[in-house]
């Protein structure tokens, strides 16, 4: 009885194994000359409607230019290094790390695999030594950092919000007080200040103090309830434009805008009108971080053979960051204000207006 169970099961397993071997032979091939571009995503997953999604969209855009693309998502911080190794072993020509937490693993991998090209989104991509304290870091020849001057577009958004506000109060909050987040908030607040200077108004910014470099934070990127509470508080204090810089948590604010009807939301990272169309009626605009554009550009540089370790900086000029169209709320934005915001963009690019 015992024996028959065991042998029976072994037979079954053997059969499955045989099948799997057969199956594995049939697939995999035809990647001869194409550039293989691979993304190592963080724990947000490819459907995060934000960072990872934008990066993947950018990679898919590069497909048209003749690249073969794929991604690996992580389930925890511990997955970053193994995922990157898998992509390298698989023969990816360029491995792009998406998210600052992947930086360490990307730097290590870049040093260990000089034949593979790497890029890291939102980090400088330099080797800061074993203790991580050498600045500026050493250039790694096969690693390109991708950074964004999102404060440029955020500056525009601040100006727009100040001009749009009826109550004279606008607000912003972040997920965590870390540079990729606070740079938006800082730009936004400075944009409001610039509006006040130009127009002689006193529009107040809630949630960010430029001098103290501190403000209102959720403490993470997943607590919807807290984000909603923060949004409600801002509304109660009279803010009628809210700019959440907390990835997917923007949904909580947009929700409050819709149910409360007292505010509009400025989306972050991607064009909210496209990513979260259910909130179309309350989205004034979006401060887009051109993650997708940058990823496309990095892959394109490998295809063209122009890849270099020189960092990519996303600006208004190269569309690495920009203010999204007003979409459904276009009619509510004063034409003169819209024109001023547009001109402001040109002034920032030309250096006439300083954003930091």
């Amino acid at each position, binding site marked *: 009885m015992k024996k028959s169970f065991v042998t029976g099961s072994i037979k079954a397993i053997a059969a499955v194994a045989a099948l799997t071997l057969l199956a594995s032979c049939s697939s995999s091939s035809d990647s001869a000359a194409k550039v293989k571009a691979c993304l190592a995503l963080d724990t947000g997953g490819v459907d995060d409607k934000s960072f990872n999604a934008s990066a993947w969209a950018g990679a898919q855009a590069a497909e048209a230019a003749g690249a073969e693309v794929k991604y690996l998502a992580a389930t925890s911080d511990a997955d970053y290094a193994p995922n990157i190794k898998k992509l390298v072993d698989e023969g990816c020509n360029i491995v792009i790390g998406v998210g*600052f937490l992947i930086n360490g693993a990307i730097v290590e991998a870049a040093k260990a695999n000089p034949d593979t090209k790497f890029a890291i989104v939102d980090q400088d991509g330099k080797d800061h030594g074993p203790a991580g304290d050498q600045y500026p870091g050493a250039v790694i020849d096969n690693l390109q950092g991708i950074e964004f001057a999102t404060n440029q577009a955020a500056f525009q958004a601040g100006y727009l919000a100040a001009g749009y506000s009826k109550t004279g109060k606008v607000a912003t909050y972040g997920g965590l007080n*870390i540079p990729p987040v606070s740079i938006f908030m800082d730009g936004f607040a400075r944009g409001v200040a610039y509006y006040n200077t130009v127009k002689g108004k006193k529009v107040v910014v809630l949630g960010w103090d430029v001098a103290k470099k501190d403000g209102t934070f959720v403490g993470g990127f997943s607590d919807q309830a807290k984000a909603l509470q923060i949004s409600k508080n801002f509304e109660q204090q009279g803010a009628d434009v809210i700019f959440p810089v907390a990835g997917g948590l923007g949904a909580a604010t947009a929700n409050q805008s819709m149910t409360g009807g007292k505010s509009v939301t400025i989306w972050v990272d991607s064009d909210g009108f496209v990513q979260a169309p259910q909130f179309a009626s309350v989205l004034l605009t979006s401060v887009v971080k051109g993650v997708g554009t940058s990823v496309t550009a990095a892959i394109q540089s490998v295809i063209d053979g122009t890849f270099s370790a020189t960092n990519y900086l996303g600006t208004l000029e190269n569309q690495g960051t920009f203010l999204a169209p007003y979409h459904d709320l276009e009619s509510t934005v004063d034409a003169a204000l819209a024109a001023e915001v547009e001109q402001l963009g040109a002034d920032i690019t030309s250096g006439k207006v300083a954003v930091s």
Partner: protein
Amino acid sequence: MNKFKKYIEETSKSIALPLLAFFLAILSGGLLIAFSDPKIYKLWKSPLEFLGTGFASAGHAYLALIQGSIFDGNLTSKNFLLGFYPLSETFVVAAPLILTGLSVTLAFRAGLFNIGAQGQFIFGAIGASYVGFHYNLPPVIHALAAILGAIVLAGLWGGLVGFLKARTGAHEVIVTIMLNYISVYFLLWLLSTQTFLRKGRQDPIAPPVNENARLPKLFGMDYRINLGIFIALGVAYLIHILLSRTTWGFQFRSVGANTLAAKTAGMSVPFVMTSVMVICGALAGLGGAVQVMGSEYALTAGVAGSFGFDAITVALLGRAKPLGTVLAALLFGALRAGGLTMQANTTTPIDIVLVIQALVVLFIAAPAMVRAIFKLKNVKSGTDMAAKGWNG
């Protein structure tokens, strides 16, 4: 004759059950894989192709699972031994899991449900990280110091639970759940302080631990496998000895099996609860140390992943025995390492990979369900009933 029959019945049960569970998990997982492949929905009309594709994607996925956890022929081009890289990855994942699993197991044996391995892991990681980057000590000594830092910090954190339970009767489940929250947010805050901020970075990542404080790699730089796995196995053996051979372990088990009887026999229940939780905390904390010193080299907000929570499953799966915990952690490690490859080599989304892992555990952990599905006769339940009903 009767004895022989019983022996056969029992052995066949003990061997058949896990095998059947595994078979069920493979089967239902295979269905999931097949149906998560968008290709298959276009093939409704041709049943043969439909089945073939389904089988192929399931088979491909399972092959990837093995390639990611045990051996991958594709990696042998440079060096045959490199084919075992996946196995080394399994050990890398398993090492901290064994330790957190032991933490939960030991608590179980003393009648406590330690949900707090996650928080204790975090405190261990904090301790190891701080000692690891803040001091400059000679090799070996630095690593030992970092481990000590982890054990002390996490031991105190765990001991707090036992102390509160012993002193005030506060239920350890509630306390540990709350302490988990505190640990997570404390870590977030800590990572924003100047001490823990890596120079030039402002995102939540601590400076890397010194080279001297890192656990040595076992097979060179090509593999991530490090001393951690041996630490974990050694500690598992120590816990086995603690439970089976020492007076402390005897008290732990007594309190766990029957608190009233232990108390009546003069054992100090508060002492047992506090000391058990100190050790549990230290175990989970050691897991954090192994993770930080062995593979991650830096403290991050997500350093604990789900090690502390998976530990509960691992301990349950291991039937709260040290050896069982080790085996369960290895299975978990294999599933996690293989899961990443499954995602990499097939079109199976990572979420489905996680679902399959959960299914395997579910089927193995729920023998009653497997028995019901296969209509196996349960030898034991008969005697159970007799013991209850045969009382007149």
